[in-house]
């Protein structure tokens, strides 16, 4: 066998093994694409109405929370993260006031 023939055989073998590798990967790629499409569908499926309800709920909870914090502060306790729940001593706290006024 000439050297050239030998070289061609080696190239053919390498190409074959690459092809096998590609075939082995194909189902993985396919399942990832399917997963991606499914997640996109789910994301869009949430009706507009539902989204609005969730937002309104969150806002209401926030409002109640804010009122509660304000009450707690007016009763003489820190609501800032520095001293949350500790009694206010020596007057009002800048960080509590800053926090309550921000939202």
């Amino acid at each position, binding site marked *: 066998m000439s050297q050239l023939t030998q070289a061609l055989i080696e190239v053919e073998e390498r190409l074959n093994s690459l092809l096998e590798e590609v075939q082995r990967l194909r189902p993985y790629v396919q399942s990832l694409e399917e997963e991606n499409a499914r997640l996109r569908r789910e994301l869009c499926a949430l009706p507009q109405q539902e989204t609005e309800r969730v937002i309104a709920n969150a806002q209401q909870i926030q409002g109640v929370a804010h009122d509660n914090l304000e009450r707690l502060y007016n009763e003489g306790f820190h609501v*800032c993260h*520095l001293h949350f729940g500790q009694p206010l001593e020596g*007057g*009002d*706290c*800048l960080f509590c*006031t*800053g926090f309550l*006024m921000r939202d």
Partner: protein
Amino acid sequence: MKVNCSKDSLLTGVNTVLKAVSSKNTLPVLQGILVKAEDQHLIFEATDLEMGIRCMVPAHIEKEGVTVLPARIFSDLVRKLPEAPIELELENDILKINYYESNLSLRGFDPDEFPLLPDLNGEETFVLPVDIFKNMIRQTIFACSTEESRPVFTGCLLQIEESNLRVIATDTHRLAYRIAEISNPENCKFQGIIPAKTLNEIYRLLRDDEENLTIRFNEAQILFQFGSVVLLSRLIEGQFPNYKQVIPQSCQTKLFLNTRLFQDSVERASLLARDGNHPNIIKLSVESERLSIDQSSDLGEISEIMNIKKEGNDVNIAFNSKYLLDVLKVIESEEVLVEMSGSYSPGVIRPLDDPNYLYLALPVRTS
């Protein structure tokens, strides 16, 4: 050790380090001042382990040596020494101080027990302009808290960031903020809470004719070097609160006031604000172009009226007079701008001609 020096040199050394001597009854050696004769200098050192100060003064050294002397008695004696050539001589652990034909002797502690002051060589270094830094300390330090239970408020936050140097202090009832532009070609970055006690000492020791102050720092300590003094301090551990979120971005009332006239009015009114239930509370009321402070107590009453320039709403508001006086004392500008938003939001005070300083204080809620 055998040393010849002046009373002045001894006094300078002792007075410089004295505030670092431990006042607590911990290690006896910490209640002493280390005195070391080396290379034609006397070196003085004291530390309470939170802060350490080292100072070098010129002296004629015949024989090198080191001792630690009890601070109280040593400083009292030095103060009372005559203005004459003074000779120090250490034999075993007894220091003899000779002057004229008199002499006295003091028993020292073992210098090997005295803690070493780390010099933070190899740590990051930065040079600060003394005049700017001194003023920054003066305009902020009074807003620090003295309550040891909340350590982060017992110091000033020092920030070096790009070409900005910031010092901020708050006791949670008021906040002082000072920013200055500096040259920072190496882009040094620092952020740390420096104990008020340390800054007070630096302020006291920095002479006005000194131009620069070198700082060196790591995560836990900061070192200040100026003239022949080195001061090492621990940094206060903990997170300084986000001061930006408490600075109001808008206001409903703006007052333009003459600083000294306003200060005098507040001072007079505060003298009569000695009401047992609300000590030092003064009530300001702003109606069109008039600011009035009316105060009455068992002592008598006062009615201060100032004609002012105003923008925005009228307002009635009460402050702890100390919170106003503390800041008015450190503002040099002729006019101050006072910004308020109703009776419950923090009042902001700033010098009219200097955007680099800002102070805010919470009003007092009165019924």
